[in-house]
């Protein structure tokens, strides 16, 4: 065997080993959470999802936390989606390559790397105190909105830019305006990519802990309006774990895991469906 060939084979072996061990770790983590969480949920029964926690040790269900988590996730994305998409359309289709635009892109990339607890601190100072929203789902959603916006903008921008030029050419040559072209050709073609970005953002919003603890609070109640505080599943898990209630924590962890898994599978399914239809 030549040296090059030996090198080639060992590189392949290393890559393979890394890939396999990544998968093994992933399966181990998921499997562990499932094994410790699911039977435990089963022993509590359906009421785990439908009742509020009881007593000082928070036994019973996590219904208020599920509501808080969903409320916060949906609200933050309802705010983030139109703004993020608008910004992405602007950046991809109208902005060109000016200094100012590059600065916007650069800051977006920078912001997406800022630790979430820093966002949390900002949310606490700005939304909770300065704007007097108090600990509330709204303050939490706005903070999470700021957190997910940069990534949402950048993934959507890339999805829009990936739409072949030939589609735009065809559309414009048929007498469509630029906006008609964007709305009826570019955006539908970019939709799977944009959707993936949205679902990843949802996963991030749903899984966020620190920023939400600082802004939506930790009161284990079912929020009736955006101005009420709440305790998300993640924050609940945080409290349970710090109080040493490991068994209770794994139940919550299993729920979190399944929801995030659900987000990702939905994204995959929607994309596959879209691809089948449009080639």
């Amino acid at each position, binding site marked *: 065997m030549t040296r090059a060939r030996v090198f080639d084979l060992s590189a392949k072996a290393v890559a393979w080993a890394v890939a396999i061990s990544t998968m093994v770790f992933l399966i181990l983590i998921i499997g562990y959470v499932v094994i410790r969480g699911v039977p435990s949920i089963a022993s509590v029964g359906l009421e785990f999802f439908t009742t509020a926690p009881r007593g000082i040790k928070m036994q019973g269900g996590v219904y208020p936390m599920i509501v808080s988590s969903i409320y916060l996730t949906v609200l933050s994305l309802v705010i983030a989606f139109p703004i993020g998409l608008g910004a992405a359309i602007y950046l991809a289709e109208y902005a060109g390559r000016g200094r100012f635009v590059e600065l916007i892109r650069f800051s977006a990339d920078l912001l997406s790397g800022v630790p979430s607890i820093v966002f949390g601190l900002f949310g606490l100072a700005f939304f909770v105190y300065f704007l007097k929203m108090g600990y509330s789902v709204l303050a939490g959603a706005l903070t999470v909105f700021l957190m997910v916006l940069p990534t949402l903008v950048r993934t959507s921008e890339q999805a829009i830019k990936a739409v*072949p030029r*030939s*589609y735009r*050419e065809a559309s414009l040559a048929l*007498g*469509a305006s630029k906006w008609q072209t964007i709305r009826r050709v570019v955006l*539908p073609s970019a939709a799977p990519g944009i959707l993936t970005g949205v679902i990843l953002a949802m996963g991030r919003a749903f899984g966020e802990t620190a920023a939400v603890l600082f802004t939506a609070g930790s009161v284990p109640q079912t929020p009736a309006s955006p101005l009420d505080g709440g305790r998300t599943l993640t924050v609940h898990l945080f409290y349970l774990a710090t109080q040493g209630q490991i068994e209770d924590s794994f139940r919550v962890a299993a729920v979190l895991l399944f929801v995030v898994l659900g987000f990702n599978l939905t994204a995959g399914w929607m994309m596959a469906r879209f691809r089948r239809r449009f080639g």
Partner: protein
Amino acid sequence: MASEVKFEKVDFYYGAFKAIDSLQLTILARKVSAFIGPSGCGKSTVLRMVNRTNELVAERTRLEGRVLIADENIYDGVDLFSLRKKVGMVFQRPNPFPKTVYENIAWAPRIHGVKRTDELDEIVEKSLKRAALWDQVKNKLKSSALSLSGGQQQRLCIARSIAVNPEVLLMDEPTSALDPRATARIEDLVEELKADYTIVIVTHSMQQAARISDSTAFFLSEGAGRPGRLIEFGETERVFTNPSSRLTEKYITGRFG
């Protein structure tokens, strides 16, 4: 309604670069005109002048002189959207939208204001029939256009263009990405369509130009950085058998380009 396209002393610039020099040319209605010439001589540029899409592919373009469609100067206060409705274009690579067959055809009529479903159905059927594609896709109207073969996709693009009743049909090397059979079908189609439209086709194939065009225009640029010029224009048969310019003869017989 097919219209005549007339270029009157046209100079065309990309920024400071003069791409076309004093073009004088009349393209007859209900005829197929072929543009031939070596790469970079400006065939596509001249074609794109007719639907004003050079402005889309380049930042700064400038045109001097006049381009007339049915005696109306399209570079003088014309509405671009209705101009492009009047002038259809078919590209080198088939570029159907990633939508269904039906939606591809109904797309432009919708943009231009057709709303009623029965009316759209009728346009879709008529356009697909006109493009000799109906029989092959009538049961696949709801499938993705991208599932069609390359040749079918190109005919779909032709159907998409004629769905808004253009007066002129521009084709920029429409068969260069297709196999010989698909090419032959497009050529047959072009012959049929010329009864209703003014057709301009850019081609690198002398045989194709000879087969399907009534008139041929030969363009040439004397080297990089020099503008393209129209060397010769006339009835195809005459241009190919008895060219009046030595340059045309050289190109046709394959001695350069």
